[in-house]
């Protein structure tokens, strides 16, 4: 059996570095209390508004389109405006989690709406992000029955709604929010999205829309909660 052979080989290789039981205990201890490694690019603690500014700057550099709106109720009309401005079809397949389920979709009658898993001919998909990471302009999505991950990959346009006060400094904080929002466990997939799909495989030139979306819009809604600085 390969399993026995591999473990015997590994244990043999490590036989010089202390007894197995002591190592098991040390590892269990480390797993229970993960070490604090130097965090990301943020450095000093930042105010929520600074995090948002940084987040938007990253999105712009990535070729994504940040759109700021005051309230979540404006999401449907913001989507209509975005699609109209780019001459895109007025069709949207949307997730149905978080606030997306209860939005005033009737305020956007021009929009043909669908829910559920994305289909091959869908033109635009809407997801709700659990968090945004200021460090790199990354959106953090959690999959689930009401938030199919295919929305982020099959349509040519991916639109993501993100609450302004869900923008955090680093991946560490964002993952903790994901776990908290999913009842203390990891969802089946956590998708960290940093710009639209791209490739540099032909002649070294970066081209958008390799297999996934060609464009990524981020609707940032609501106020930045004025609060004490968030730790980096």
């Amino acid at each position, binding site marked *: 059996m*390969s399993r026995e052979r591999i473990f015997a080989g590994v244990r043999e290789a*490590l036989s010089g570095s202390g007894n197995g039981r002591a190592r098991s205990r040390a*590892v269990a201890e480390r797993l229970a209390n993960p070490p604090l490694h130097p965090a990301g*690019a943020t450095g000093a603690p930042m105010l929520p508004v600074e995090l948002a500014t940084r987040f938007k700057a990253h999105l712009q550099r990535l070729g994504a389109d940040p759109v700021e709106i005051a309230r979540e109720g404006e999401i449907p009309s913001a989507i209509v405006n975005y699609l109209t401005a780019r001459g895109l079809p007025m069709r949207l397949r949307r997730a149905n989690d978080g606030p997306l389920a209860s939005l005033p979709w009737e305020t956007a009658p021009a929009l043909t709406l669908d829910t559920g898993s994305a289909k091959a001919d869908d033109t635009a998909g809407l997801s709700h992000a659990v968090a945004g990471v200021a460090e790199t302009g990354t959106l953090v999505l959690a999959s689930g029955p009401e938030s199919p*991950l295919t929305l982020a990959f099959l349509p040519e346009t991916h639109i993501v709604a993100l609450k302004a006060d869900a923008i955090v400094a680093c991946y560490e904080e964002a993952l903790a929010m994901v776990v908290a929002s999913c009842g203390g466990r990891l969802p089946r997939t956590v*998708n960290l999205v940093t710009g*639209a799909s791209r490739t540099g495989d032909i002649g070294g030139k970066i081209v958008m829309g390799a*297999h996934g979306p060609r464009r990524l819009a981020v609707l940032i809604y609501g106020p930045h909660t004025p609060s004490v600085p968030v730790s980096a």
Partner: protein
Amino acid sequence: MTDRSTFEAAIAAALADEPLQLALADVPAGFVAGRQRARAELPQFDRLRRTARDIRDHILANLDVYLETFEANATKAGSQVHWASNGEDARRIILDICRKAGARVVTKSKSMVSEEIELREHLEKASLDVVETDLGEYLVQIRGERPSHIIAPAIHLRVGDVAKALRLQHSHLPGDRELETPEAMITEARQVLREKFLAADVGITGANFLIAESGSAIIVTNEGNADLTMSLPKVHIVLTSLEKVVPTFADAWPLLRLLARSATGQALSAYTTIVTGPRRQGDGEGPEACHIVILDNGRTELLASDLRPVLRCIRCGACMNYCPIYCSIGGHAYGSVYPGPIGAVLSPALGGPSATAHLAEASTFCGRCEEVCPVEIPLVSMLRKWRMRDLSRPSPTSRKSRALLRAWAILAARPRAYRMAARLGVRVLTTLSGRHGRLRRAPFASAWTRYRDLPAPEGRTFQEQWARRKRIDRAEPT
């Protein structure tokens, strides 16, 4: 795997290959400049490298415990973990899974481990329609080649080569279609591959990391092809190797912060996906089964050897981008799955040392690979170890090298004879060079002087100059 003479012929061919040279000339402006920018924007980059090195060393020193923990948690999450000692085991396990799933079409995202065990070729022989979905990897597949770089498989191709390959492969499309720009080519490949994504019964991905604390796999791409590969078919197979395990997410973030920055200069690749098991109750999509195949293939031997630090590698490819040899000959000339400095160290251990130990000679020992490695692998001393091992094996080349080294050692151990020989050599070379101070031809150095002059010594040996300075210092005390 190549032998020495094939390697030498491949180097000569690569140097004479003008299109390849043009393609390689872009590496400094692309990846190298990108990494430099990314590093400049992250002040704690070098501190992170030390952290990453320590994390990887800690994992390797406790690999058995982390693998057991991973297996237990992955199983709890609903995945099936399989262990493969070698390529044959892994191929058999994967073919079995495909057969049980009744698979006809199999999509694959990029995985160097799959290249290592020639998985695609093997599955194709079993009559499966296997499609690489990373664009670079797809191009390499339809041209019947191997990847020439671990993160940019088609880096050896230019735009014209790609158009030609697509026209040949997609003969069902109109022959007069416009295919001039990379955009047009990508649109075409996207449409063709989209059909495959939707038709696939099994999707095979690699994994950049396995997370012990949760039994998750982390898979990184820029195209999003791994996500379509693992989400649309009813079976997802993760093929990876045992050193990819990482204790916790807290340990994975520093590695992820370094990975894309070192590879392409991006702060993070477009899609970083944490996947934990198959579809869950209530999910309307996702695979019904998730299999994780963990390959050894020589790695436990590496773990036991003085080459253990090579297992720290997170496969960013920076050592290739910065290597003057790689940038001169490209990846194919190496004839090994992993090219460049990391390949020269890793390949002999995976494929049997006799086959590829000579790859270690493809280095100037300039040390740039080691300077840019995100996990601080001492690549130069590891290359040197392979050279030493190669030298101790009986072969015509090693006999000649050993005889020369022995002669030099005899001389070096006798200071008086050494000084005399050095003096003689210097005088001869100075005389031969005449007034110009350069030699157009030198005895035993025709390989060097064919392309450039040899600077002649400046009259005296180092030891003579040193002795003279000491005399002067004594005469003029300061």
